[in-house]
Structures are given as C-alpha cells and as structure tokens.
C-alpha cells in the first residue's frame, strides 16, 4: 500500500530505495546528504528485505563495491555530495566502460574544493559530461521536489538497467534538506537470484554449461575492437536521446521569454514566471528532467517562438552552454545564477530577465 508522509528529500531517497527492492547501498557520510545513510541505518532493511547497507571506508571504496555488486546484476546505489562524487569519478568511468547499471545520488553543495555545505548546482558539467575519463555519459535525472527524489530512484534504476549504464540523480542541498509531502510506493520484493540470472544474462551469476563465461571488464587492448565497443556505447546515447528525454513545460504555450532551469532552481523559477505574468510579461519555464539526454530538440522548437531565453542555475553558467548549443544562435540566451551556496530569490530572477531583455 502506498503511504503519505512529510519527509526530507534525503529521507525520501532512502525510503524509496528500500521499497523499490534495492539490493545494496554503499556510502560514506558527507553533508548535506548524510540523512540518506542515516535513514537506511535507522530502518534496518537487512532485517526485512535483505538489502545490504554498508558504510565504506571512503567514497572510492563505495564506488568500487558498486562495481562488484553491479557486475553480479544486483541493484546497487550510493549517494554523496560534490567532493565525494569527485572521488568516485574513476570508478564511474570503469562502471560505464564495463557497461554496468547502478544509481549514484549527488546532493550537490557549493564548490570548488571543500567549499560549503550550502546548496549549489555547480556540478552540472561534471554530471552531464561523464565526469571521469573517456567517451561516456551518465544518465542524469534532476528531481525538483521531494516526491521526485522518491520517484526517481525507481526511474534511475529502470533506465540504468535498460541501457546497462550508470545513472546519476543530480539533486542539491535544498531538495535534499527540505521537507514536503511525499507518496511512498508499496514495498516490492527484491529480485530472486534465479529471476536475476534469467533477466540479466550478462551478469556474473555463476557459469552454467549452457553458455560461455561472462566477463565484466572495461579493458580492451585491441584498438579496432575497442573502437567497435565505443561505437556501441555511443549508439546507446543516441537511443537515449530518441526514447528517454524527459522535461516539463510551465506556461510555455504563449511564452515570449523562456526561463530554463532544473532542480531547485526550477522551483524558484516557477514563482518567477507567476511574478512576471502578474507584471504582464509572458514568461514560461522549461524544466529539463533528464539533463542527459538533454531536451535540446524541445528548446530548439521553442527558439522559434520566444524572443529570448534565460538559463537560471546556482552556478557560474554551466546549463547555459547546453541551452546555447541547442538553439544554435536562433535566439539570445543569457545566464543568471548565484554561487557559493547563495540561493537566488524569485524576484532576483525577474530582475535578471528584465535587465537582459526588456531594458535599454
């Protein structure tokens, strides 16, 4: 049975993971996401669903435990915040190179460096461009409510297994720490070993006489074979752009000016759209839900309709580059955003749009 609760975004992630039937969580504490593991430890799912919850000795250990679990076809996840996610990049590249599904949650805080524990969106470029070495991408989902924090656990796993590719939930300290009403889904059973072996024939579940040995690796020393592998991986990313782009439009039908924002910033911008409309300015908001694959086609369509676009993000200007690439010069694209843990108010966004497009 589903259940209505008031929860923090971080707590919702933990609850949703147990209820979805995740097999293992491997993490290391860091603010502002520590409630994920705290909640898991408090709920003791190893006594109910059999889910493993393990505090590793570091983020590097966590991500490599993920590699092991994912290689066995298990549903494994970790969560961290910006500096911890940076430590995981080598492992993420290996997971992508070995075509292993897993879910990573980044509750972003302000950087660079150890930075601040306050919310930011300054890990966008790292998230959507793979983050580690090599030609790969993560599937990147950007929740903008506590409900989506819960719902995207399932969505991230579905997509990760569909493409055999790591998925990243890119949240931030604001969505992680705020409380909202959330409807939690009913408990699902974890997949049995037999079911898993049938559903994921690539997984290392023990070699039966009926098939060749499964090998999980990211190394391939023959350049021609490795080029073929790279083509195969790139084909997956093309398919994602065809089948799995997700976005939300808010008052775009008659919009003359478009705000583009994701996650926490999109919440703030919804209010800005209301304020702009009260002033008689026809504004709309496009909220990318998948940051990779990016809803570039949709933005290109809107470029034929609006007079200007403003990318609003808690960073110096990272999302704005993808918006500019998408519209390819058809309309002016400007950027507004605060940094270092400062959160812009809805009114500041209104002022930024007016300053960029409506004055002088």
């Amino acid at each position, binding site marked *: 049975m589903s259940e209505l609760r*008031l929860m923090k975004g971080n707590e919702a992630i933990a609850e949703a993971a147990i209820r979805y039937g995740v097999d293992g969580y491997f993490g290391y504490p860091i603010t502002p996401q520590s409630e994920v593991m705290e909640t898991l430890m408090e709920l003791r799912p190893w006594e109910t669903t059999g889910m493993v919850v393990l505090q590793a000795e570091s983020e590097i250990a966590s991500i490599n435990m993920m590699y092991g679990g994912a290689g066995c076809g298990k549903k494994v996840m970790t969560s961290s915040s910006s500096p911890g996610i940076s430590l995981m990049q080598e492992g993420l590249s290996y997971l992508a190179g070995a075509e292993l599904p897993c879910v990573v949650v980044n509750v972003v805080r302000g950087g660079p460096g150890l930075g601040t524990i306050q919310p930011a969106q300054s890990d966008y470029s790292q998230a959507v461009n793979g983050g580690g070495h090599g030609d790969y991408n993560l599937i990147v989902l950007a929740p903008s409510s506590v409900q989506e924090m819960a719902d995207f656990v399932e969505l991230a796993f579905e997509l990760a297994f569909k493409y055999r590719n790591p998925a990243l939930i890119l949240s931030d300290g604001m969505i992680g*720490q705020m*409380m*909202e*009403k959330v409807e939690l889904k009913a408990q699902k059973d974890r997949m049995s070993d037999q079911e898993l072996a049938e559903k994921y024939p690539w997984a290392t579940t023990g070699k039966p006489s009926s098939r060749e040995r499964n090998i999980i690796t990211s190394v391939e020393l023959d350049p021609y074979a490795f080029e073929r592998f790279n083509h195969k991986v790139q084909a997956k990313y093309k398919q994602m752009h065809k089948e799995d782009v997700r976005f939300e439009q808010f008052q775009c039908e008659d919009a003359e000016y478009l705000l583009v924002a994701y996650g926490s910033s999109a919440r703030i*911008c919804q*209010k800005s759209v*209301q304020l702009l409309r009260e002033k008689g300015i026809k504004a709309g908001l496009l909220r990318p839900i998948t940051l990779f694959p990016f809803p570039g086609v949709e933005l290109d369509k809107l470029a034929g309709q609006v007079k200007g676009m403003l990318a609003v993000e808690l960073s110096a200007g990272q999302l704005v580059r993808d918006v500019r690439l998408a519209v390819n010069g058809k309309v002016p694209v400007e950027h507004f955003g605060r940094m270092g843990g400062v959160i812009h108010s809805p009114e500041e966004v209104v002022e930024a749009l007016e300053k960029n497009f409506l004055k002088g």
Partner: protein
Amino acid sequence: MNEEIIIAGFGGQGVLSMGKILAYSGVMQGMEVSWMPSYGPEMRGGTANVTVILSDNRISSPILRKYDTAIILNQQSMDKFEQTVKPGGLLVYDGNGITRHPERDDINIYRVDAAEEASKMQSAKTFNMIVLGGYLKINPVVTMENVMNGLKKSLPERHHHLLPLNEAAIKRGTEIVKEIATV
C-alpha cells in the same frame, strides 16, 4: 488558500520542529506543504529559521523574500524579518527578550508571551507549542484536530505520552495571545 510563513528565533527554541508540526498538520488537512530550513551554523544558541508554505495548490518556490506571516521569537529575527511581512500580513511575536518592538502600521501584530507561560507551566519545551497556539488562534489555517494528528505523526512514538501536555500548551497559546495593532 496559500499561506507563506517564516518562523525565526534561536536554535533550541523548537523553531524547526514547530514548522514541522505545522507542515504535518497541513498534510493531514490534505494541503500541499513545504518546509525549508536555514541550516548550517544555526546550532543551539545561534539563529534558526524555517519557511513553511501551506497551499491548496502545487507549491512553486520553497524559498521566499516576502511572507504572509512572520512568527518571531528573538530580537535578531525581529530585526531581520519585520520588514519581510507583506502589507496586510501578520506578525506574531514573543515579547521575551525583545528590546525593540515591531513598529509597522500596515500589518497585523499580535504578541504571545510564550516563554513566560512555559515557565509557569514548568516545561520550557512547551514554548513552541504555546506560540503555535497563539498563531492558530489568529489564523486558523489548520483545524485543531489536524494539528493533533500532525503532532502525533511528527513525534516519535516514544514521546507520545507528551501529546496531552503539548495539546494543553497549544490551548494555552490560544488563550494568552493578544492584539497589539491591526489594520
């Protein structure tokens, strides 16, 4: 209905938990709610504040610059938030430790001396519930029944024996809140 509230005071006064109980009461009443703390260095003794929004519709920004209601529990918060109340809005404050009382003439101002009352009730921890009672008397955004349901949901079960004390504190708040100025 759309009520945007800031609750501000010292860490340790129960600002965040008061916000949580109010938000949970909203959930019990079938509303959309958000609870957004200012967190970080606001430990015991520092300043703490939380934005709570209760609405019949989907909530946009959980972070705001202007509020329908400010519930103010110390002087620093009075200095910071008195001017953020929308004209015609509501300011509820505890007079304890306030050296500069609110001066605006375009908002409704009420005072609930909860710190004094809590010490009379010999339970400092009932402070925030007395304040909540005062606020709900002036602006009954949620029914008392749903407040009690919300309280039950937000308190861990091992603290459920404190429910009657909290209910009494909320009731006391409704009785002692007094009008200072209205528009």
